[in-house]
């Protein structure tokens, strides 16, 4: 009886969060502006850091794997950009509710609002990174026309990030250790996910590392269209599966703990 009511409240929370789109859209923009206030490049600082990471990785790993920079750079840069909306979100999601701690104490907002806000900030940053990616590619005369699948894969990646940031954010708010743990887990995942290497370059015995990693599939459905190719069907199916699992866990954790989060802050 109580569970049924809490379950209904959990789904209503997600709906109410979505309906607050005008609010998290404005707040996300304002927070992005505020974060880079008094800087010259603004959010393009983040894009520059992506660019620098991609360049360094392309130089080192390109030469290790014997690939030319022209081959490895677009692949790695698109990978790093795609990572920011997939696995990179794992690190961010620990802060979902802690960043909103102040406002949660004084204003009634659905819990999912904070997750929507988080994903909105992520997408704003992603947009800057994609623009930087296209600008660099155009400069190198390698501009890849994006594949139409991007229109589907970006919303799927955003929705998945939204859903898993709810349980992860809750855990990190309740147990402060998780925050640090997520930090190194997401770093380890970056290495273990084929962001700057290809599955084929690995010994077949270790292919499971990429096959069983949901972020690897989610990454591919964003990266391949960015490079102008369609993503593989297995990547799509695995990503959809990840989305469904994240959704179930999100609704479950909202059902059980939605009311308590404010006391954990």
């Amino acid at each position, binding site marked *: 009886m109580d569970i049924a009511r809490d379950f209904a409240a959990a789904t209503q929370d997600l709906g109410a969060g979505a309906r607050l789109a*005008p*609010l998290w859209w*404005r*707040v996300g923009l*304002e927070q992005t502006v*505020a974060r880079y*206030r*008094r800087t010259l490049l603004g959010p393009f600082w983040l894009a520059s850091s992506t660019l620098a990471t991609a360049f360094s990785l392309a130089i080192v790993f390109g030469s290790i794997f014997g690939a030319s920079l022209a081959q490895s750079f677009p692949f790695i840069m698109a990978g790093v950009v795609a990572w920011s909306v997939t696995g990179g979100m794992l690190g961010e999601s620990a802060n979902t509710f802690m960043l909103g701690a*102040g*406002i*949660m*104490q*004084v*204003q*009634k907002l659905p819990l999912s609002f904070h997750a929507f806000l988080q994903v909105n900030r992520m997408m704003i940053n992603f947009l800057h990174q994609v623009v930087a990616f296209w600008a660099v590619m155009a400069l190198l005369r390698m501009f890849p026309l994006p594949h139409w699948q991007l229109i589907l894969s970006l919303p799927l990646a955003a929705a998945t990030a939204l859903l898993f940031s709810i349980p992860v954010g809750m855990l990190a708010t*309740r*147990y*402060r*250790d*998780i925050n640090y*743990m997520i930090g190194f887990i997401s770093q380890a995942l970056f290495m273990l996910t084929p962001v700057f290497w290809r599955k084929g370059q690995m010994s077949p015995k270790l292919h499971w590392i990429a096959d069983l990693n949901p972020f690897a599939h989610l990454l591919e459905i964003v990266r391949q269209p960015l490079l102008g190719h369609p993503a593989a069907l297995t990547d799509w199916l695995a990503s959809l599966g990840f989305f469904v699992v994240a959704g179930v866990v999100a609704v479950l954790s909202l059902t059980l703990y939605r*009311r*308590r989060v*404010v*006391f*954990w802050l």
Partner: protein
Amino acid sequence: MTISISLNGVTLDYAIYSVRAQSLRNAVLNMAVGGKLMKGSNDVTVVRALNNVSFTLREGDRLGLVGHNGSGKTSMLKVLAGVYEPTGGRIRVDGRVSSMISMSIGLDHDASGIQNIRNLAMMQQIPKKEIERRLPEIISFSELGAYIHMPFKTYSAGMMARLTFSVATALNADILIMDEWISAGDAEFQQKAAARMASLVDEAKIVVIASHDMSLIKRVCNKVMVMEGGQATFFGSTEEWIRLTT
């Protein structure tokens, strides 16, 4: 829609977590030993912040919450604002709520006063055009003058209070919930603030204010609730309360 608040047997319990209870190591240790090791240690304290509180407020009511520190005033305000959901009982709030429970939250100290007005109004979901239309009025009420273009961090506590008060009371909320910080600001601004509170009531709104300032409550409120240990020990008109206490 008629604006009203009604509480029926509202109870609020919440757990306060110590530093130890927020550590994963202790949680794992607890699991490993079947929860026996940590049991009895008071790492997680359950507090009954509100105990079976019932009352009804109608349009035009201005409720003053009085009571000692820790008597449940702020918990009450947070339940009314919808920040905390009661553990037991029912609460029904009809009307748009604006809460001023803390004056520093939602403020960007590097941004100008004017940008902070925009941000505060944004959080109340006021459309952009409406904000710009009301800006001059809010600025003039705050009496901040040219300071409105200065970064918020350069403001004194009184100036900060004036800015937040000006925004919160300009936004036409149906129900206004305020903690006692309103008493910040100089005597002159206090008078202006009291006058605005009175005009808010004329517009048939509900105001709930928690304060230790008895003269403020006598001046502004028509109803008083005395809280003690999470319970309402008195709820009635201000006249009755004055008669009982003097």
